[in-house]
């Protein structure tokens, strides 16, 4: 099987991730719920990963990182916990439903949304954000990289716009964390939402949210925290403020092992390998008759994604054939990015998305390209 669906989840994980999860399952108690060895093992393990993440994103203090189940939870926390009726927020058509749907909910409660359109290559630029700023604008919320086209937005420039206008900058790093260097200080990010199971190579069910020092977010959930038991309200100290209930200790330890692996290999090396594979695939298929590729490939760096269609063929049928006939796993359909598809004119057709991991090989890329060539030749017959 050739797995080219890494933007959905990086299926292959480093061996140490599997070992860390197994070890945790055999040794971990519940973190913050006792001082015995089992509980302390969990607390120490989780704290260590918190610090790793803080270092990884240049956040400094470990207490600024709360663990969540995924980006969707982090984004819900950010959107629902920061925006108020009467606020204006700027977002883009590139966004995933994990940004759009919480925003639509807030729109029902009186939040005003400007959704920036993209150009013909699917790009949105910092100046587009600047032009949309109003007196009541409270935040910019956008993706760092499109999960559909792989286009990378310039987070540093967008962060500078937010900083200039005193706006909150909420960045969705679902497709970029672990592949691109993310420096929350340099990018002026107030809230960073990330998942653990994609580029960060951790287990599913892990993720987190970075919240800038001094910024308070109304928690989405309340309940057990291991602290301030007799208070009626959930504690407001970070990171526990955003972490009600038992954490996914084994998953978090797996994420920690994945971070150690990434640090050892280096994000630059991972990006270099993934971009090499992605660009090779792009070169191989771009001139095939009938192939339409989406996104901006002139960018010096972009997410390792190539999304295409063959003529007017339903993307689901193409993806189905790629799996049935060639044992190649790709993603078809809408990719939870409705506005991006609308902008690209692929709402009914969907699109075939290939997404690469540094674990993929050039042979796999060539085999996949040959399969697309063959399917393209057969198209219409």
């Amino acid at each position, binding site marked *: 099987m050739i797995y080219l669906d890494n933007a959905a989840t990086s299926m292959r994980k480093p061996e140490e991730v599997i070992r860390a999860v197994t070890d945790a399952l055999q040794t971990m108690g519940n973190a*913050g719920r*006792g*001082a015995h060895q089992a509980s302390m093992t969990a607390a120490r393990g989780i704290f260590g990963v918190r610090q790793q993440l803080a270092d990884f994103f240049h956040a400094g203090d470990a207490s600024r990182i709360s663990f969540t189940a995924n980006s969707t939870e982090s984004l819900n926390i950010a959107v629902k916990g920061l925006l108020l009726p009467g606020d204006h927020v700027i977002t883009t058509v590139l966004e995933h439903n994990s940004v759009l749907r919480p925003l639509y909910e807030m729109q029902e409660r009186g939040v005003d949304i400007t959704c920036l359109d993209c150009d013909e290559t699917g790009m949105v630029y910092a100046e587009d954000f600047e032009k949309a700023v109003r007196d009541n604008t409270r935040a910019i919320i956008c993706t760092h990289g499109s999960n559909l086209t792989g286009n990378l937005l310039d987070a540093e420039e967008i962060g500078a716009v937010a900083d200039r206008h005193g706006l909150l900058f909420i960045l969705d790093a679902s497709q970029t964390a672990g592949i691109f260097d993310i420096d929350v200080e340099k990018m002026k990010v107030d809230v960073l939402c990330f998942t653990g199971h994609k580029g960060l190579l951790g287990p599913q069910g892990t993720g987190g949210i970075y919240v800038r020092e001094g910024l308070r977010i109304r928690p989405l959930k309340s309940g057990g925290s*291991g602290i301030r*038991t007799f208070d009626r309200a959930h*504690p407001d*100290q970070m990171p*526990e403020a955003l972490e009600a209930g038992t954490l996914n200790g084994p998953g978090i330890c797996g994420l920690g092992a994945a971070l150690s692996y990434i640090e050892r290999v280096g994000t630059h090396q991972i990006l270099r390998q993934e971009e090499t594979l992605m660009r090779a695939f792009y070169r191989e298929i771009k001139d095939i008759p009938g192939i339409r590729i989406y996104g901006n490939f002139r960018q010096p760096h972009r997410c390792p994604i190539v999304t295409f269609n063959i003529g007017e063929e339903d993307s689901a049928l193409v993806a189905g054939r790629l799996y049935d006939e060639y044992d190649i796993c790709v993603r078809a359909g809408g990719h939870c990015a409705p506005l991006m598809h609308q902008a690209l004119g692929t709402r009914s057709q969907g699109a075939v998305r290939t997404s690469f991991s540094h674990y993929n090989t050039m042979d796999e890329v060539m085999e996949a390209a040959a399969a697309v060539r063959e399917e393209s030749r057969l198209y219409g017959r």
Partner: protein
Amino acid sequence: MTENKRDHIRKRIKKDYIIITFKTTTAAMAMENRCLKKGIPGRLIPLPGGIAAGCGLCFRMLPEEYAKWEKELGCGEGSGTEVYHYVM
């Protein structure tokens, strides 16, 4: 339980300790981490019922060690920690 262990428990003598409390488990873990790195003796224990604090863990150390490391520990006002004498 061995007879030796039972004997040890019977002969236990209460001592005066310094107890450092925290607002969050994460702050407690950060203190433990810092002390391990700097070689500061002490350990996290369950918070005694006689002390009110946010977090169920506290850092216990001997008063003479606390006096020696007080500056490095950086406890007290504005640090999110509180320091108590506690006999246990």
